[in-house]
Structure formats: structure tokens, C-alpha cells
């Protein structure tokens, strides 16, 4: 089901919408026939792409599920995975203040990059050669022990009717149930994205209320989604190959927060083929 696409409208010149007026909610059609506007995703199209995405996930055992909401027709994609992180801790009794240093074992995260849908990242994984800071005063040498902590990540893909794009929600907790704090999440963002994050952490990843569950989750802000998805979809239309919006979008935003997609998702059809 191709989306109607056109060149992005210049932001400074508001133009009257050419799209036929819809009546009140209930008539959201998947197709956008407006040729003047950016590509955006309507809810039925979102659900359709999710269904195709899910089929592929099931085929390759990638662990995604669909959670339908009890009181309405909407729902969301959901996946849980576990990540081991090496931590270095001061043993109790050391005179330095207790500190924790995060050494994500594989900074590049296990997983593959789809080079057609994302940009290259040549950052070397931050490995264990990263030195602990050793205080110069010998009397205060910290005693450290390497330990591994398992972190449980839960990712949800919801549809935002306001922005008309998918949004990635996630939460993370240690094995004992202790949740990760926002600063931990910011610190864990891949090297490649740290510069962008530092430009505006509060515009990028923050804690928000999950719109269905009402619980605190972290969110990757959706404001720029249409901006980066439009060229991807335009290009796919140009080469006459339909792309699954969810697979394309997730392959771009997922890696920022430790979620990768195997390359085979690039072949997920956008319509029944």
C-alpha cells in the first residue's frame, strides 16, 4: 500500500491542503492522496506495516509481539531483550567513594546495520581497554572487581496520532527490578549519537507516561521522524520498491537505544506480495 508522496513543502509557505476533507474521526484511510505534503503515516497503514513486520519477526524468531489494547482497536508492538553489561565496582571498605563505571560489552551492540537504510558508523566499539581512573594517591587505590549485570530492555512501538508517526518507547531495569535512570540511559546511547544527544538531551530522550499503560517509559522524541522518513520513502517509490515503514524507521531509531534489526527485515514487503 504505497503512501502518497511528494517533495517536502517549504515550511515557511503554508498552503491550503489539497486532501479531501475527512469527516470526524473514524474515517482514517491508509492512503494519503495529497501530493504537496511530507510523507506521513496513517493509523491503518501503521497497523498494516506492523502486521507485515510481525510476520517476519515470527519467521526469524526475533521476539516481537503485538499487544492489543483491551478497550479499543489500537495496540502496539512489543519486544523484550536482555543485555549483559560489565561493571566495575569498588569493594566495600575501600576508602574512595563507591563508584560504578559502565563498560557496555559491545558498544556497537550485537546486530547488523542496514546500509541502505541507515548511515555508516565507523566508531570502534568501546572495549575493556578503556582504563579505570586510578587515583594518584596510593593510599586510596580502589579495589575493583569486574562483574556482569544483566539489564532487561523492553521496547514498545506505538502510533502517535498527533505526529502521525510511530514512536519508540522503552524501559530498562536490572535483574533485581531496579529501573535505570534517565542519566544511565543518556550515558548508554551509542558513541555515534552522543554529539547529537548532547546538543539537546531534553529534546531527544526523556521519560514520559506510556499512553496505554500509564507507566513511566523512556521515549525517543518523534518530532524529526517525518523529516528523515520522507526521503527514504520517496526514494523507495522512485526505484519502484515498496519499503516497510516500520522496518525502515526502526532500523534508524532503534540503534540509538540499543535495538537493532537483522538485515532480513529490509526485504519485508509493505503489501501482500
Amino acid at each position, binding site marked *: 500500500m504505497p503512501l502518497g508522496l511528494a517533495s517536502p513543502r517549504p515550511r515557511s509557505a503554508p498552503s491550503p491542503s489539497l486532501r479531501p476533507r475527512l*469527516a470526524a474521526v473514524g474515517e*482514517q484511510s491508509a492512503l494519503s492522496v495529497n501530493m504537496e505534503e511530507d510523507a506521513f503515516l496513517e493509523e491503518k497503514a501503521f497497523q498494516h506495516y506492523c502486521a507485515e513486520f510481525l510476520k517476519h519477526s515470527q519467521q526469524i524468531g526475533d521476539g516481537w509481539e503485538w499487544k492489543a489494547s483491551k478497550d479499543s482497536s489500537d495496540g502496539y508492538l512489543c519486544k523484550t531483550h536482555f543485555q549483559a553489561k560489565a561493571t566495575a565496582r569498588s569493594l566495600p571498605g575501600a576508602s574512595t567513594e563507591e563508584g560504578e563505571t559502565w563498560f557496555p560489552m559491545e558498544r556497537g551492540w550485537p546486530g547488523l546495520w542496514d546500509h541502505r537504510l541507515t548511515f555508516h558508523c565507523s566508531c570502534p566499539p568501546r572495549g575493556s581497554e578503556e582504563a579505570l581512573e586510578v587515583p594518584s594517591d596510593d593510599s586510596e587505590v580502589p579495589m575493583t572487581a569486574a562483574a556482569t549485570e544483566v539489564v532487561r530492555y523492553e521496547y514498545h512501538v506505538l502510533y502517535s*496520532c498527533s505526529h502521525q508517526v510511530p514512536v519508540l518507547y522503552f524501559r530498562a531495569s536490572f535483574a533485581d527490578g531496579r529501573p535505570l535512570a534517565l542519566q544511565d540511559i543518556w550515558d548508554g546511547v551509542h558513541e555515534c549519537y552522543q554529539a547529537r544527544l548532547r546538543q539537546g538531551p531534553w*529534546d531527544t530522550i526523556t521519560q514520559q507516561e506510556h499512553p496505554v*499503560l500509564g507507566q513511566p517509559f523512556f521515549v525517543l522524541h518523534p518530532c524529526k521522524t517525518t523529516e528523515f522518513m520522507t526521503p527514504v520513502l520517496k526514494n523507495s517509490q522512485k526505484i519502484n520498491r515498496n519499503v516497510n515503514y516500520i522496518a525502515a524507521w526502526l532500523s534508524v531509531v532503534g540503534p540509538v537505544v540499543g535495538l537493532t534489526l537483522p538485515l532480513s527485515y529490509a526485504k519485508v514487503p509493505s503489501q501482500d506480495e
Partner: protein
Amino acid sequence: MRQEDISEIWFEYEGTPLKWHYPIGLLFDLLASSSALPWNIIVHFKSFPEKDLLHCPSKDAIEAHFMSCVKEADALKHKSQVINEMQKKDHKQLWMGLQNDRFDQFWAINRKLMEYPAEENGFRYIPFRIYQTTTERPFIQKLFRPVAADGQLQTLGDLLREVCPSVMAPEDGERKNQVMIHGIEPMLETPLQWLSEHLSYPDNFLHISIIPQPTD
């Protein structure tokens, strides 16, 4: 209390942790509208309820949340054109006007968010959220146009019938619920466009509470 025992502050009313990111008027309407002012709440310094409440590490968190709501509202009203055309300093002015209770400073910017093109009869969609304590879902939010296909202005009643029909049932019988915004019950015949322009909260959303009719 010892300093080391104190952790993040949080608030509670009758067993319910209070969401700081909701407007205080909304919280009151939803949880305590039948009680007399002042509203007595409990202040906690321990045992932060991680599963229920967002952390509020600094004022930046509040500003970020507020601005994110304003941006979402403008995405609905104007496809984000108005908010995106503003400069960072305008966004800052909106927040500072709210933070420092400066009506003119706030409205100098907010009035632009309340305009719409001359050829239209209103916003593209109305930013609203409907809250009920009886549901698991924290609120209902859907796309809803202020003007129908035939050019008629949609009313508050039209909105409820469409997105929350149980509230309006039975149509001709006695209503079991009150529909409250800012502590008052607007007439259901009020045009939604008018409510959005005049009764929105500072974040540009209409926060609507559905509460049981008081029994007295």
C-alpha cells in the same frame, strides 16, 4: 529525617501518587473535585513509586515536558507550522511566562498558537485528552476535527459521543457523569473550537475530566 534518608520528593492523595506532569487543576478535578479547598495532600520523601511516577530531576524536566505538549498540540492544530516557525527564544518566552506567572509575556507567544488561516473555520484537529479514574488507560486522545464535512462546528457533546460514548449514555436518561474542564461543567452544546481557543490549559490541550455525579 537524616539527609541520607531523603530521596526524591513526591505527592499523594488518598493513596494515589500524584502525577506532577499533569496540570494541578486537572488532578484536583479528577480526584478531589467534591472536596473543599484547600486541597490537603501528603508529601513524601522516601519510597518513590518508580512504577507510577515520572522522575522530576530538575526544572529542565518540567520545561521539556511542557514544551513537548505544546509541540504536540501544534502538530494537531497546525501540522507544527506555527511552533516550528518560532525561534528558540519564543519557546523560552512561553515557558518563562508560565513559570513566572506573567500573563502578557505568555500570551504574546501563545496567541499565535491560537490563530488559524482565514479560509479555515478552525484548527486542523483539536488537542484534547479525556481522563477517567475508572479506566486502565490513562487518557483518551484521538484525531477529531472541529468542523464537520458539512461545515458545522462540532460541539463538546459531539466529541464525547464519538470518542467516549459511554459517558453520554443514556442519551435521554439521567447522566451518571459530570464533564469537567477547569472545575466547571461547560454546556455540551459549546463548540469545541471555541473551547480549544479559550479553555485550553497553558500546554494548549483541553484536559477533560469525566467524574461520577456527586451523590449529595
